[in-house]
């Protein structure tokens, strides 16, 4: 039987348990059925995204070209230089995750090709964690695809309740959800159980509730680019805690309810309208004046 009405994590858990399969299997079967494709075709689409993520990292690592506004674009290069002379305190994988996240985000703002995952502003989080972990832990391509499907399914279920858009629910619904997706994907890659995956998502998500979207000059640049590196590492913390058996005391579906409510209560001035917060700091206003004059 194909379970197509999966709109909550509880329903997803049940569907996995009944069929005794992993999240990615339930998700790809459902997707194939609804889109009238084979599961292999669904996986091909996922592979296309995975390949594009790797290509974006590759070209992002090589460029220091600035964005249209000229405000960002050269930080990945700085980080790589630092790591080539002085290793990061947390080791090689930390170096990779942070540089890959910056590489992807900077590639995005210079109008390079990236994967919106779930959005363009949050495009560095899932790829950096997934690709760095795949390289350092020798994860096969099939298992990388499984992890990316897991990330997508997590995002899909959240999106049933909350539109994944800063203008609707703030950055908690963009970079926040991306971090939760990455936490789930990493936990899947490292052999975590469904419960552990859910706990990783829950722990990542609940520690980002309330994150506002207050971009300087209304552009996907400040603070978005660097936030990608921070929230990629945030996802790793959530995954490690969950793999240790640490549980979220609040069930995942209830955290998503809280995400939805927080998004509704968040002032519209802090939801991608650049009318408050960082966007209205003295320096931001100066930058804005300079940019609009151009």
């Amino acid at each position, binding site marked *: 039987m194909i379970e197509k009405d999966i709109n909550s994590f509880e329903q997803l858990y049940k569907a996995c348990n009944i069929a005794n399969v992993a999240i990615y299997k339930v998700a790809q079967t459902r997707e194939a059925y609804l889109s009238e494709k084979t599961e292999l075709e669904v996986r091909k*689409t996922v592979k296309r995204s995975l390949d594009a993520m790797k290509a974006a990292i590759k070209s992002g690592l090589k460029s220091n070209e600035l964005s249209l*506004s000229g405000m960002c674009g050269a930080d990945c290069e700085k980080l790589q230089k630092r790591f080539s002379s002085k290793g990061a305190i947390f080791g090689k994988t930390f170096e990779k995750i942070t540089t890959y996240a910056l590489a992807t985000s900077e590639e995005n703002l*210079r*109008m390079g090709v990236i994967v919106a995952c779930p*959005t363009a502003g949050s495009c560095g989080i899932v790829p950096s964690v997934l690709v760095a972990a795949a390289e350092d832990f020798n994860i096969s391509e099939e298992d990388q695809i499984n992890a990316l499907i897991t990330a997508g399914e997590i995002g899909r279920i959240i999106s049933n309740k909350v539109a994944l858009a800063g203008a609707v629910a703030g950055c908690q619904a963009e970079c926040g959800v991306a971090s939760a997706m990455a936490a789930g994907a990493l936990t899947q890659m490292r052999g975590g159980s469904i419960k552990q995956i859910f706990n990783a998502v829950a722990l990542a998500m609940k520690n980002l509730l309330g994150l506002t979207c207050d971009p300087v000059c209304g552009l996907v640049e400040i603070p978005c680019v660097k936030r990608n590196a921070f929230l990629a590492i945030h996802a790793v913390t959530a995954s490690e805690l969950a793999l240790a058996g640490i549980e979220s005391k609040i069930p995942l579906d209830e955290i998503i309810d809280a995400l939805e409510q927080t998004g509704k209560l968040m002032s519209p001035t802090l939801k991608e309208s650049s009318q408050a917060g960082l966007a209205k700091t003295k320096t931001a206003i100066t930058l804005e004046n300079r940019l609009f004059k151009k």
Partner: protein
Amino acid sequence: MAQSSFIDIITPVMVGPSSSHTAGAVRLGLLARNVYDAKPHKITFRLYNSYAQTGFGHGTDKGLLAGVLGLSVDDKRIRNVFDLPEAKLIAYEFEYLEDFNRHPNAVDFIFEGDLNMFVAGDSVGAGEVVIRKINDFTVKFTGKFNTLLLVYRDVPGMISRVTKLIQERNINIASLHCDRYAKGEEASMCICLDGELDEEILKLIEGIENLYLVRYVKKLEQ
């Protein structure tokens, strides 16, 4: 609840920097291009609200033009679209407006040429778009389904004549939206389909009396 797809969450592969302001703009342009389906002499793009305010740094203008020229969301040429030979063959301009009755990311396309047409749409987040208006008619389609658009004289039996032809091909209708200007005057039909229409059935549909405009807008690639 609409059945969501996890593929939507991990796509599109797109030119940055913004899913709503860049990829969404390209998609709106692509849909408007296919609705117009003629060679325009001039296109006026009206950008509203957030599209007007932050469009410049997001390449929204580039995205809209790229879409109208038929470039896909992952086409690297979007960056330099103003310099493309195709772009130099048509006149275009951008207007920046505020109207809080409209969506934060709303756009109008005004096509002028042998055929004049007005198309309006919104970029509703994560690269998803909706076309809301064609000329005076309310429509609703997203580019996720193959869509048949008809403008016709409001006479009895039009819906059944069209849907019968679709049914005979065993194609399922996902949604159907009708609107009319006034009784007996112009009316519109917007049919989203699970399957695909071939040339033959399109010819049969075009042969139905009282039709003013027929457009078959194919779904957008992921």
